[in-house]
């Protein structure tokens, strides 16, 4: 009897797994709605002005509205997880960004190894992760019942409206040897991305901005020095790099070691604006 019961419920479990697999397969096709963010950011288009692009460090950490005030029109095209899905991201940008001037703030610039080689033993795990839908079935059901309740909201400049900082603030850390050893690969990847962006947006000028990170005072100088070497390599490859504060030890500006909070967003946006103003752009 006990064995029969186990077998019966195991059949139910296979059925549940089957439902989830069907959901995951559909989610991985072009019919799926991947990024809820894109729905609300789909209306953004820029022909003249400054397009600010990048990952969550742009989405959460920069305000195009502040930069636009008494300056050129700017729009925030930042979307979470841009670092690992750049090829998807440029598809999203196609047709939306046709301006001459782009500021690209890549999280990837802080990497210690090429994508997929960050942790070799986690590689297969990561590949499997790509198949797993990052939006659960329950969230999808909730979305059907109450549309847009779970979506992140953005203003007309593409800036995220209100967000919590749930995580703990840990100091940003690097492994100096790995970081320095990977400079060549990172520079090649960034250069390639800049070329692709030029092709897809038609932009003349693409500036690479270093996304600021939070680190404790004792490690700050060592991280700055390592990044300066990388910046030097990028500049040698013909990339224009901007970034005033690369590493900050001011806790009041950050949500976590890589994402500014609202105060930080204001601070770093104004900082970027000043740099752009100094450049005396003619857009």
């Amino acid at each position: 009897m006990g064995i029969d019961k186990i077998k019966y419920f195991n059949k139910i479990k296979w059925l549940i797994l089957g439902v989830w697999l069907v959901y995951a397969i559909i989610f991985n096709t072009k019919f799926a709605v991947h990024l809820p963010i894109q729905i609300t950011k789909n209306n953004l288009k820029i022909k003249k002005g400054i397009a600010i692009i990048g990952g969550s460090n742009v989405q959460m950490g920069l305000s195009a509205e502040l930069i636009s005030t008494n300056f050129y029109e700017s729009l925030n095209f930042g979307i979470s997880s841009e670092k690992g899905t750049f090829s998807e991201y440029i598809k999203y940008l196609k047709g939306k960004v046709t301006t001459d001037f782009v500021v690209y703030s890549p999280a990837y610039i802080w990497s210690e190894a090429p994508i997929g080689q960050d942790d070799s033993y986690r590689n297969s795990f990561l590949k499997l992760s790509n198949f797993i839908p990052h939006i659960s079935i329950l969230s999808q059901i909730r979305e059907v019942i109450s549309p847009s309740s779970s979506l992140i909201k953005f203003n007309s400049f593409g800036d995220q409206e209100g967000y919590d900082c749930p995580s703990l603030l840990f100091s940003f850390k690097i492994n100096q040897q790995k970081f320095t050893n990977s400079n060549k690969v990172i520079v090649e990847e960034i250069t390639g991305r800049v070329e692709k962006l030029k092709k897809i947006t038609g932009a003349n000028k693409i500036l690479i901005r270093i996304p600021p990170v939070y680190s404790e005072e004792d490690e700050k100088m060592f991280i700055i020095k390592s990044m300066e070497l990388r910046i030097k390599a990028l500049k040698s490859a013909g990339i224009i790099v901007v970034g005033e504060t690369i590493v900050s030890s001011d806790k009041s500006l950050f949500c976590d070691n890589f994402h500014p909070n609202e105060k930080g967003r204001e601070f770093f946006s104004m900082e970027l604006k000043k740099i752009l103003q100094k450049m005396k752009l003619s857009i």
Partner: protein
Amino acid sequence: MYLILSIPLSLFAIFISRKINNDIIISIVSYLFFFISPILTYFGVIGVLTGFDSIYSSSLYFGISFYSVNIGYQLLKNSEILKSNPLKFIITVINPLYLFTGPFPNQISTKSKFFNLKIFLKRLEIINSELILGVFFTFILAPSFNPLLKLKESTEIVDIFLFGVIFEFYVYFNFAGFSMIAWSFMRLFGISVKRNFNQPFSATSIVDYWQRWHISLSTILKELFFKKLKPKIGIYNSVFIVFLSSALWHGVTINFLIWGFIHSFFWCISYYFLKRNFKVLNYFLLLFGVIVGRIIFSEIDTEILFNKFKVLLNISQWNFNYASEIATNPLGNSQTLNVLIAILLIFLEIILPKLSKSYKYYNYLRTPLVSSLIFLFLCFSFSGFNTNPIYGNR
């Protein structure tokens, strides 16, 4: 990459077992193996277990804290198998399944088995419920506590205690969950291994709690230190050495030394209470010990830790009139639901064994019906591998 270190260390253990017949020397070498990870932690080669995302140093040292202890244990307990079946021993040591977070495979299987799909599927029929529970604990329940961990920053008395409770739950669901996943996979492949957790919140004393939490490490510490030392230095001193060794294995830092000292102290009081049947006192000591222990465990920064101690010990600094971070409810709808489920499970874990002793090793959550319901909820709320094993990788 980790094989570069793990295989030579295993070979060295085999060499010792074959060439040395002196028990004392073998014991010393076993202890040296145990203390490899404290030494590496001391010199900053591998990270300290803070309980938050493990500090991962290099793939070369991946899992070293687990396999070095395992080698030491096997050398002491199973030196005959090391001599007669070295290949089995090496395979047991380098088995990657336990290197993320345990449990330690305490036995070396000497039966020569080839992979058999039929047997694998038979095992899957039974073991899937443990695997489902592990994934549910790890990827659904544990991450839901994440937003509440912000309380760590606070030095208000209520927040300090609340953080201790929440962090205990967070560590529990993450560590127990990953252990169940690893256990299930090892069992599926026929590797004999003890379960790492036996409903620790069902415990009625600190002594009982440590028999239910991280069981595989406790077994090793018992064999390596407790059994050897007890006849010579007595039970209380042996317990002190055991907890100190455990603390050093977690990290050579002030907070872990305090953690080891306090837990050994509480263990001894608890043992004294048990002998005199002071059940209520023992229960209060358990609650207090676990929460305070977890606060100490989490704080690697000695200055902040001592500040928290000052608040805990100085009643005049107790402030109940302030806006706690938790008051703003940083949890989303699904996280709130998950946290409520987690609290319900902990409640069941406390209550059910009081009603019947047959409730053990989460068997009430592994019945076909309950397991199917958990699996349904798991599949509907799963959104990826959104957490790391807090107890492993190093």
